[in-house]
């Protein structure tokens, strides 16, 4: 059996799959009438595809890939604004490598770099801080991107810059939060989700209580999970057990890393530096109330929006998604990546049209990398 060699603990994986099968049968889940479980985190999506969990699992359990890949939900207008800032004289624009190939309306950051802008990939906001120290004659801007996992890093970097009085360091804040888009999905009348696999590393920062509303107000189970394959299977089993017992609760499968109340230092730094925006735009999902963060006025000196007059501080530019792109439908679970007319044709990881094809955590790139490419070839 192929998966035996791929799993570190094949016996455990097999036992979990058997348990899942038993419960799925008991609930009456079938290929035609499946239980829909959304994994929110892009890391989970990647892991599900890497280990083929979607194929190994009972056919009555269907994974819906959620909006938890920050580069995938980044609107084109934000990329355009990055390029605009990078084009200002004396600016060194720094970003996580993941964001380099996200298509803007005209080009990506990678293409802007090739065209001469000083754009540098860094591993950490700490690298950007160090660049600012070493280049006092330049404005060093860091592209603050990601969910609650990376938000503490930019908050702490801004606090450090403030302590040092580093006037040439700023953050272009595009941080987003996990609970609000889940609420938006649950409020969607087309929503067909039966339960959630909660993000592990986001929850390490925020704890498990921000998900209470999912169980209490919407009556859906959610299990916070690690990203190893047996973690995911265990978590699916826990979701199914709740459904079978008619319960809805927030449970923590990843307690070895996720404390109930999150990380106090991180939460304090986030609260000190950031506040919620009234709403924020998500690619494929549109504006979602209170789903994005901005830098508080006390730290305005480190806010690239204020410094350069772009983004939500300047004139808002709304841009429709490129024609023929089905990213929105894929992200809300209404369409499978392979059913997008652009999949593998106008859109590949080398030449992404939509953002879901950019990162290995995007659903389309995951489909492509682990078998989707073959599916297209077979169809042609």
């Amino acid at each position, binding site marked *: 059996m192929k998966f035996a060699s791929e799993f*570190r603990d094949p016996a455990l994986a097999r036992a979990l799959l058997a348990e899942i099968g038993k419960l799925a049968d008991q609930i009456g889940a079938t290929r035609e009438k499946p239980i829909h479980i959304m994994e929110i985190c892009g890391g989970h999506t990647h892991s599900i595809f890497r280990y083929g969990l979607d194929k190994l699992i009972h056919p009555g359990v269907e994974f819906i890939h959620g909006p938890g890949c920050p580069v995938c939900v980044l609107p084109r207008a934000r990329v355009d604004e990055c390029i605009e800032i990078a084009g200002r004289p004396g600016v060194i624009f*720094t970003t996580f490598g993941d964001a380099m190939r996200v298509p803007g309306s005209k080009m990506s950051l990678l293409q802007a770099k090739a065209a001469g802008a000083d754009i540098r990939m860094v591993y950490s906001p700490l690298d950007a801080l160090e*660049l600012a120290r070493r280049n006092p004659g*330049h404005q060093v801007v860091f592209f603050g991107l990601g969910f609650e996992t990376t938000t503490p890093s930019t908050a702490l970097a801004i606090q450090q810059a403030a302590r040092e009085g580093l006037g040439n360091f700023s953050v272009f804040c595009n941080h987003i939060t996990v609970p609000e888009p889940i609420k938006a999905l649950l409020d969607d009348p087309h929503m067909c989700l039966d339960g959630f696999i909660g993000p592990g590393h986001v929850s390490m920062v925020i704890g498990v209580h921000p998900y209470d509303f999912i169980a209490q107000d919407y009556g859906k189970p959610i299990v916070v999970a690690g990203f190893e394959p047996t973690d995911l299977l265990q978590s699916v089993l826990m979701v199914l057990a709740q459904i079978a017992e008619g319960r809805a609760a927030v449970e923590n499968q990843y307690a070895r890393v996720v404390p109930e109340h999150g*990380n106090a230092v991180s939460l304090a730094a986030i609260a000190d530096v950031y506040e919620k925006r009234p709403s924020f735009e998500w690619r494929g999902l549109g504006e979602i109330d209170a789903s994005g963060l901005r830098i508080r006025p006390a730290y305005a000196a480190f806010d690239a929006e204020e410094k350069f007059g772009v983004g939500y501080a300047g004139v808002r530019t709304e841009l429709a998604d490129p024609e023929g792109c089905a990213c929105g439908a894929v992200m809300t679970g209404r369409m499978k990546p392979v059913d997008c007319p652009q999949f593998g044709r106008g859109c590949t990881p080398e030449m992404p049209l939509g953002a879901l094809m950019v990162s290995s955590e995007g659903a389309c790139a995951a489909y492509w990398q682990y078998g989707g490419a073959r599916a297209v070839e077979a169809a042609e």
Partner: protein
Amino acid sequence: MCLGIPGQIVAITDAARQMAMAEVSGVRREVNVACVLGADPAELVGQWALIHVGFAMALIDEDEAAKTLQALHDLGEAQETLAQMAEGDAALQGRATEGRA
């Protein structure tokens, strides 16, 4: 970017800035330890942490660190993170002195 990588704290490098040296898959990299700091920073030395974009975010035991690293290798994420660290080092050396000249 979203998944952390385990590293072992080998030394405190700058207590005031809450910085420490960590060893990640044989590569040394300075990280911020503010989020995992206890009363005595020296107690961190030798411990394993889950490191996200240069910040130690959670302390984990050695066994969990080894398992997590293996899983990240299987996913290709560990290799990607190490490449990004090298990229970050290169960015610091990059063409950046025009302003000072």
